[in-house]
């Protein structure tokens, strides 16, 4: 997929660029408003990640221009301001999602994949991973063609893992993705373990392999 990143922070931009290249995306990166505006008027992208606070102008104006010229491009707004107003304005302008700095890469990746899925398959998409088939819009999971029943949390967890397959996903990012700020109510994220255990068991009971590996104390990796 072709992705445009408009972010003025060099170090952060490098990391995101690096990350998406590893994921196999083609990623272009510009650092200011004018360059970003030029890029979106000249080229087509599958998704654009736009920082709101840019030198030379507001990222929201690029969102507007992009919506006018290339309405099919997915848009994710990145902002340092955890402000509801910005979020509402951004989403009203037609952005698909909104993520606040500092974010987990796994979270960004999951949202990017979700946007790309929605944009490219208009909802009728399937994700296939080895013996697993996931139909996100129906919230269905099949192992070897057989439907398995997952709770909402388990389903979201699986989708999060699949979006970030072959990568270490930290416990923090899982907790934040599934429980949001409420995850802070306990001092450890150990409560996510029972959900992972159940998900693993349900997949294996239906004939799948053990895809979820624990990585040190850090997190988990979903891989074949």
């Amino acid at each position: 997929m072709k992705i445009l990143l408009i972010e003025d922070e060099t170090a952060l931009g490098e990391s995101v660029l690096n990350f998406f290249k590893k994921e196999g995306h083609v990623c272009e990166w510009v650092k200011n408003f004018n360059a970003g505006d030029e890029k979106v008027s000249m080229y087509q992208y599958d998704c654009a990640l736009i920082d709101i606070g840019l030198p030379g102008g507001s990222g929201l104006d690029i969102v507007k221009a992009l919506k006018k010229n290339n309405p099919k491009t997915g848009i994710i707004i990145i902002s340092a301001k955890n402000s509801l107003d910005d979020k509402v304005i951004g989403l009203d302008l037609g952005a698909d999602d909104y993520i606040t700095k500092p974010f987990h890469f796994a979270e960004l990746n999951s949202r990017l994949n979700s946007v790309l899925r929605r944009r490219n398959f208009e909802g009728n998409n399937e994700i296939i991973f080895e013996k697993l088939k996931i139909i996100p819009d129906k919230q269905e999971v099949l192992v070897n063609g057989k439907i398995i029943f997952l709770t909402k949390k388990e389903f979201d967890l699986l989708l999060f893992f699949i979006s970030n397959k072959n990568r270490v996903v930290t416990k923090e990012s899982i907790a934040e993705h599934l429980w949001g700020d409420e995850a802070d109510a306990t001092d450890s994220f150990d409560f996510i373990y029972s959900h992972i255990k159940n998900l693993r068991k349900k997949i294996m009971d239906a004939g799948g392999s053990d895809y979820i590996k624990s990585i040190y104390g850090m997190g988990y990796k979903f891989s074949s």
Partner: protein
Amino acid sequence: MKLLTKTGLYYLCITLILFAASGLLFYFSLRNIINENISENLSGTKEQVQQYVQQFNRLPTSSTIGSDVLFFTPASQPVKDEMKDTFLYNSYEEESLPYRQLVFSVQTNEGISKVTARKPLMESDDLIESIFTSLGILAGTLLAMLFILNWWLSKNLWKPFYKTLDGLRKFDIGKKEPLNLSTTSTSEFIILNEEIQKMIKKIRNDYQNLKEFTENASHEIQTPLAIIRSKLELMIQSENIPQEQMKMIQDVYESTNRLSKLNQSLLLLAKIENRQFHETQNVDFKNLIEKKLEQFEDMIAFKNILLSPALPKGEGVALKMNAQLADILLSNIIGNAIRHNINGGKIIIELTNKSLTVSNSGNLLEIPSEKLFERFQKGTSSSESVGLGLSIVKQICDSYNFRINYTHENSFHIISISF
């Protein structure tokens, strides 16, 4: 005591002292003048008697001289002139009255006569009485005038000052309303008002800067944090990192997350203080609590906590407030009750139209309970929390004038909010 009452009292004291002193002075000088007058009078009588004797060579009668009292007694030899004060009994007034008498002698054909001329002295009592009565009336009138003047001054001259005072009393730095001071033509008050306005402007600026500083600092910290976190996440993905280094990366990563949470909490506090959550709507607390309990389900189950919600049946409890703040408020209170609970503990949530009470079992506080709502106060040192949760709760309650209270009863921590 009011300034004008105070000056009034000073005036009163000074007037009384002054009047008493002038009364005394008056009395003595008046008495002296009168006494001298009498003495001169007596001396006059003496001259008249002597002239009469010289002219007619016989003693005069009292009436011929026109003097009050004149006595003649024969004497063997001339006496020396003697002026003295004496008391004589007056049968009419039935008391002794003061007199001044002059004794001298004259030589006639019949021989030497001793003459005693007397004049009544003014009675001191009467003098004092009349002086002090008149002075008293004068002082009374003066004081009455003074009070009328004070009243008028306070009503008119001091009016701008009292208006300024009133404006200062109503002043609230948190609110944006301009300070309403009086318009006046008195230069002292003009200067006072100008200086106050200048000071308030400076205070407002400083306060604003301070508030903005927290917010800006928090914003500026977000980006470096995002960079640190992104680099760490990239490092984690490397497959050839030895385990002990991975452990270090994990520690850094966890600290970064904590820092990020702390920063978000500070930013939130600053935003609530800066009243950036102004949109309000009717928030159904009952509904919201049910939603929150659902979100916390996994954490509650993980700690084996027994939950007993006592929510009102039927209709919900609607409160007019910002939806995001209501969400944060409940998240923090319920989250707190879970975090600071013991394994297998209890949480009781009671909601009525007037209050919300959340009680939870847990270890004793390590800080005094009155410090519980202060920033960076952690109830238990082992906790991973940053210690801002209850400050945020307090701040939200304050901005809606909810009263929040902490008590500890039967080893339960009880937080109650009255709406």
